[in-house]
């Protein structure tokens, strides 16, 4: 069965610091990859997604992620975080063939301090 690993449980950064959150998945076939964000008290919402094409994808609010197939990774990055980026971030994967649900990682809580 496919699984998703997020390496950091809780990350604390100062404003303007750079961010990289790790995500690795275990599945050898073709996958769709996602990052979701949950701001305090809000719905889970999509940050960015990769289906095919350019492995560097850009999402909302200055986030980007790079798909490295050889490493089974889809790390999330932002060059300069803001206090408003404080949230929980979830990496998710599903298999392209068939109606398969998303499999989520355990999430990374990001706290940005002024």
């Amino acid at each position: 069965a496919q699984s998703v690993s997020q390496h950091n449980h809780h990350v604390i950064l100062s404003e303007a610091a750079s961010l990289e959150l790790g995500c690795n998945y275990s599945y050898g076939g073709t996958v769709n990859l996602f990052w979701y964000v949950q701001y305090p008290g809000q719905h889970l919402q999509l940050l960015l997604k990769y289906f095919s094409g350019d492995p560097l994808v850009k999402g909302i609010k200055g986030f980007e992620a790079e798909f490295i197939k050889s490493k089974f990774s889809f790390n999330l990055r932002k060059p300069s975080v803001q206090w408003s980026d404080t949230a929980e971030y979830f990496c998710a994967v599903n298999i392209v063939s068939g109606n398969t649900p998303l499999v989520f990682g355990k999430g990374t809580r990001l706290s940005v301090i002024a």
Partner: protein
Amino acid sequence: SQTIHQWPATLVQPVGSPLSLECTVEGTSNPNLYWYRQAAGRGLQLLFYSVGIGQISSEVPQNLSASRPQDRQFILSSKKLLLSDSGFYLCAWSRDSPGEQYFGPGTRLTVT
């Protein structure tokens, strides 16, 4: 545009009581529907998903069941709640093909 509703938003129930959480989607037809439970530090655990009316796949054997009586309605139930059923329950939908899922606001269930 599509919207997804969940109710109730919060619920406090005693151990042994029944449960019914409802999820409805508007603005689309024949969606795939999902129930997840979110626990702190444990991410989102898929409980059930459905690709059509009356078609339910269970991912984790437990004290819960799901039903899809109508195309855009998904219900999560239990006959007798356990303390361990406490948590945050999220409903989601997606279009036919595998891809992005859209999440509802969630229901916070506390079993006392």
